[in-house]
C-alpha cells in the first residue's frame, strides 16, 4: 500500500513541481536559464580567442614549411 502511495506521490511531484525534474546537469530542469546562456557565450568567446591564436600559429607553421622548401637543400 505504502509503495503505491509513494509511486503516486512521485508521479504527482514530477508533474506538479518542475524542480523535481531537475538533474544536476542543468538549473532546475531549465537549460535556458540565463546562467546557462551566459556560460555558453563565455565558452564561445574563449574559443574565438583561442581560434584566432591557433589560426595565427597554423599560418606560421605553413609559412615555415614554404620557406623551408625555398631554401636550397644541402643535405
Amino acid at each position, binding site marked *: 500500500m505504502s509503495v503505491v502511495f509513494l509511486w503516486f506521490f512521485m508521479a504527482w511531484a514530477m508533474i506538479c513541481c518542475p524542480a523535481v525534474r531537475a538533474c*544536476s*546537469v*542543468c538549473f532546475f530542469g531549465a537549460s*535556458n*536559464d540565463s*546562467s546557462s546562456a551566459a*556560460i*555558453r557565450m563565455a565558452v564561445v568567446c*574563449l574559443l574565438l580567442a*583561442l581560434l584566432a591564436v591557433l589560426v595565427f600559429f597554423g599560418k606560421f607553421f605553413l609559412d615555415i614549411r614554404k620557406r623551408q622548401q625555398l631554401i636550397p637543400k644541402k643535405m
Partner: protein
Amino acid sequence: MILQGRSFLRRCIFSTDHKVVGIQYGITALFFLLFGFCLMLLMRWQLAYPGTPIPWIGQWLGENRAPGGVVLPEFYNELGAMHGTIMVFLGVVPLLVGAFGNYLIPLQIGAPDMAFPKLNMASYWTYLLGGLTMLVSFFVPGGAANSGCTAYPPLADIATAGQTVWLLGMVCIITSSLLGSINFITTIFQLRAEGLTFMRLPFFVWAQLITSFLLLLAFPPLEAAGILQLFDRVAATSFFLPSGLVVSGEPLKVSGGGSALLWQHLFWFLGHPEVYVILLPSMGIVTEIIVNNIRRPLYGYRTMVYSVIFLGLMSFIVWAHHMYLTGMGTALSAFFQTTTMIISIPSVVILSCLFLSLWGGSIRFNTPMLFALSFLPMFGIGGLTGLPLGVATVDIHLHDTYYVIGHFHYIVAPGTIFAIFAGIYYWFPKVTGKRMNENLGQLHFWPSLFLMNGIFMPMFIQGLAGVSRRLYDGGAQYAHAQGVLHLNVGISMCAWLLALFQIPFIVNLIWSMAKKEKAALDNPWEATTLEWAAPTPPPHGNFREIPKVYRGPYEYSVPGAAKDFTPQSEA
C-alpha cells in the same frame, strides 16, 4: 666543469646556462615533490584512522593544526589543497618542463643554449619565489589555502588569508611558466642545428614543443581568473559570488551578481591542458627510453607526431567536462562530451605505437626501461578509467568521488612520476658522467610499482561505491561508504611503504653523485640523439663544434650499418 673560471655564485646559483637552470629546477622540484608527498602521508593517517593522534609526528604539527596529534578538519583541508597545488604546479610540471625540458632541449636540437638565457634564469627564480610563497602560506593566520587545489569560489572567496597568498604564489608560477614556454618555443623554432628538420626532431622535443604551446595559451585565462579572485578577496567585488549568499547564518555584504561557474570556466581552461602539460613530456621521455632500449626504430614516428599535435589542439576544447554538474546546460555537456571522447583517440594511437615498437625488439631491461615500460599500462589504466568520467550521465554518479582521484592519480603518479624516475635514471650519466646503481634501481622500481597499484586500485572501488573525495573522515558518516572504508587502511599502508621504498632512490642519487670514478663514455646507452654527442657533462656551450644532422632520430639496427645504432650527427 661548467663555466670554468667564474665565481661559484655566477656558476651555480645565478647562472644563465640552461643546464644549470635545469638542474636547479630539478633539485627544487624534487624537494617540493617530496614535501607534497609528505602532506599526503599525513592525510592518509587521518583517512585510515580518523580521529586518532598521529604517532611521533603529530606532536610537532602544533596545537592550532593538530591538537594532541589529531588532525583538525581545517588542517586536513589545507593538506588536501596544498598537496594538489604543490605536486602539480611545483613538483611534476617543473620537473618535466623546467628540469628535463631545459636540460635536454638545447642538447637534443644541437644548440649552444636556450634562445633567451636570462629569461631562463628569471623563470627559475620566479618559480622559486612562487614556491616559497606557497610554503610561507602555511604560517599565515588561518593556515594555508584550504579550499582545494581548484580554489572553487564562493568557498575560496571567503576563505582565510592563506588563499590570498596562494593566489600570489600562483601568479609567480604562471609568470615563470610563461617565460619558460616562450623560451622553449623560440629555442625549438630558431636554434635547431643545420639539417635538423622538424621531422627529424626527437619525439621528446616535439612533446615539449606542444607542451610549451599549452602552457603559453592555457595559463593566461587562469591568470585572469586569479586576478578576478584577488579582486573578490581584496576589493570585495563579487565576480564569483551570487546574490543572496548566506555564510554561517549571516547574509554576505556584497553586491552579488557573479557566479562560481565563471571561476570553473576559467580555471578548467587551464586545468585540462595542464593534464596534457604533465602527460606529453612524460610520453616524450618514455618514448626516448623505450626506443633506445629496444634497439629498433620507433613504430610510426610520423603518426606519433601528428597525434601529439592533434592531442595538443584537442586538449584546449575539452575543459568543460569538469563542469558537467555545475548546471551549465545540456548543450555544452553534449559538445564537451564529444570532444572528450575524441581526445582519447590520439592518446591511444601514441600508446599503441609504443606497444607495437616493442614487437621484435631485443629489449634491455635496465632500470630506466622498467620505469618507462610500466608507464604504458599505468597510463593505460589511468586513461581508460577517464572515459566513463567523460560521459555526462555516468559522471553524475562518479563526480567528486575517489574514482576521480584514482583515475587522475594513475596518470600522474605511476604514470608521470614513473616517467620522471625513468628520465632521471636514463639521463643521469649525461648530467654527471656517472651511472646510477642498477640493484638499488630495481629495489626502487618493483616495490614502487606494486605499492602504487595498491594505493590507487582500491580507490576505484571506493569511488564506484560513491565515497566523496573531500571528506575529512573518509566518509564514516555515510551508510553507503561503510562497506569500503576498511580499504583505507590498506591504501594508507601502501602509501607509507611507498615512502619507505623511495629511500633506495634517494640513496642511489646521492651515492652515485658522490662516486669518484667517471664513466668514460659519452654515450653509455648507445643512443642516437644529439645530446649523447656532447661531451660529458656538457660544458657551457654544449658541443665541441656545432653539430650537423644527417638523419632521423631513431636509426637503430639499420641493415648494413657497422653498429646497431647510427647517431643523428653521423654523416
